[in-house]
């Protein structure tokens, strides 16, 4: 514990190095598995082959268009879901009546798979981006909402009493007390939702056939182009890593006061 604290070589560089190390390790295992014959390389080509294919993709404009399409539905869907969940969460979370009255409904709706809603979505919105958005929003909304509700419940009783005694009304308490307390939970919810939104954006493209990475994955799958498919999956995973990186940077900024970021507890 102590050693880490006095670490001189930039801890950031070290963290980055370890992270890259982890990924390299993963690629090595992936490379070895088909080469050693653990799985047939016709169904899981070695990492190098997939990486080469990914490299080709990266030079194609069509690939970047697909990425842009997917990221558009992702960003829009996530934004709508987050804003909706924050509004709904703050309203429900700060009223006991609403919390109790909505409990059954929320628990009933949450486990409904977005995939099952595809026919309904297409029926309502056709095969336009709205359908994809509906699925993305439906799936990621609950993640943020639930985390937020738990965050709101985490408000310190003394802090809340303090705010009340100084005449902070409900809105002011939401703004100054409840929101900051729930923020760490919200950030976790956001990270969960970001991945789910990406997954749903791709799945929706895959099934509905709107343009994007998902459609491309479906094409490579039905065309039997295995390395291309894994290259696209790899791209998806990398987008996930980048999204997380962004979330971490955001977290550092908005949670600088929080023990998890300020790090009094060195672990």
């Amino acid at each position: 514990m102590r050693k880490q604290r006095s670490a001189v070589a930039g801890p950031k560089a070290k963290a980055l190095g370890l992270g890259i190390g982890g990924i390299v390790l993963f690629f090595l295992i992936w490379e070895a598995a088909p080469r050693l014959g653990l799985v047939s390389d016709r169904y899981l080509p070695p990492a190098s082959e997939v990486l080469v294919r990914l490299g080709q993709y990266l030079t194609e404009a069509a690939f970047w268009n697909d990425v842009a399409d997917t990221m558009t539905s992702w960003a829009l869907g996530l934004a709508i879901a987050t804003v909706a969940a924050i509004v709904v969460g703050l309203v429900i979370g700060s009223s006991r009546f609403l919390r109790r009255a909505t409990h059954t409904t929320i628990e009933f709706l949450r486990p409904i798979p977005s995939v099952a809603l595809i026919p309904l979505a297409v029926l309502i919105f056709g095969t336009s981006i709205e359908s994809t958005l509906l699925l993305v929003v439906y799936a990621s909304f609950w993640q943020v909402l639930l985390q937020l509700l738990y965050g709101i419940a985490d408000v310190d009783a003394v802090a809340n009493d303090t705010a009340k005694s100084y005449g902070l009304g409900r809105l002011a308490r939401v703004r100054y007390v409840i929101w900051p307390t729930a923020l760490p939970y919200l950030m976790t919810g956001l990270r969960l939702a970001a991945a789910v939104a990406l997954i749903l954006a791709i799945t929706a493209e895959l099934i509905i056939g709107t343009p994007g990475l998902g459609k491309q994955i479906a094409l490579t799958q039905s065309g039997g182009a295995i390395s291309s498919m894994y290259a696209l999956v790899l791209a998806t995973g990398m987008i996930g890593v980048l999204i997380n990186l962004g979330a971490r940077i955001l977290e550092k900024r908005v949670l600088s006061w929080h023990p998890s970021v300020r790090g009094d507890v060195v672990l």
Partner: protein
Amino acid sequence: APAGGGDALTPVTVGVIPIADTAPLYLGFDQGFFEDEGLELTIETATGGAAIVPAIVNGDYQFGFSNLGSLMVAKDKGLPLELVSAAVASTGDVTSDMGAIVVSGDSPIETLADLNGKTVSTNSLNNLLDTVARSTIDSAGGDSSTVSFVEIPFPDSSAAVENGQVDAAFVVEPFVTSALENGNRVLSYGFAEFADKLDIAAYFSSAATVAGDAELVTKFQAAMKKSLEYAQANPDAVRAIIATYTETPAEVLAKIVLPTYPTEFNVDAVTALSEAALKYGVVENAPDMSTFLP
């Protein structure tokens, strides 16, 4: 509207699955057959009926592509759909077809009857493929009620066969070719075994469109007819166009068996299919061929 006139094209959207079966539509578009009929064609793709059928029902698409099994089930369930054109059929050649039941190279299974008590995968259950498979097994002296069918998507089927997770798989091109390339063996070309040039799929529309816009349907049918004929006559053009909208590797594409692109339904084969569908409980009532086919 003036046929072939360039000034007032009627927009029409067709929802299809991007596979070899729909090549004529792409060809027709390329060749200008639709434009000639005064149609401004847009092709939308999906992986299956889950998205196409609702889009047809709500009028988002005017026409769609679906396999005949699904269409029979849909009509049986009372969905307001109407078939408008033939689309694709098997080759009818029991030694080389676009769909086959494959087993691994070292499998002890030699005949369809050997499948008794075994596991067979198809891409979708209670549908065209398993109906055909059951029927051919029973005709070959087996007992299909002892065979268990599981759903595995085509791309993953040959892996499942090779790893012994299933005993046989009913797959279509390009996976027949790749299965053969990888040392697997065709047990039976199921479609051809079942009937001569069995229609696999069809283009369909909603009852509302058929009733309300007969002119559009007629134009589409005319353009489709030209496209299907052209495709049937130009297999090289078919292979070339498939390369543009699928990701099938070129070397595989060169070897796949192309289906037949008929302009008319094979009524006998479809009737046999509907009877089999009834027999195996896929539909509750056999469709009336006079109203089912266009």
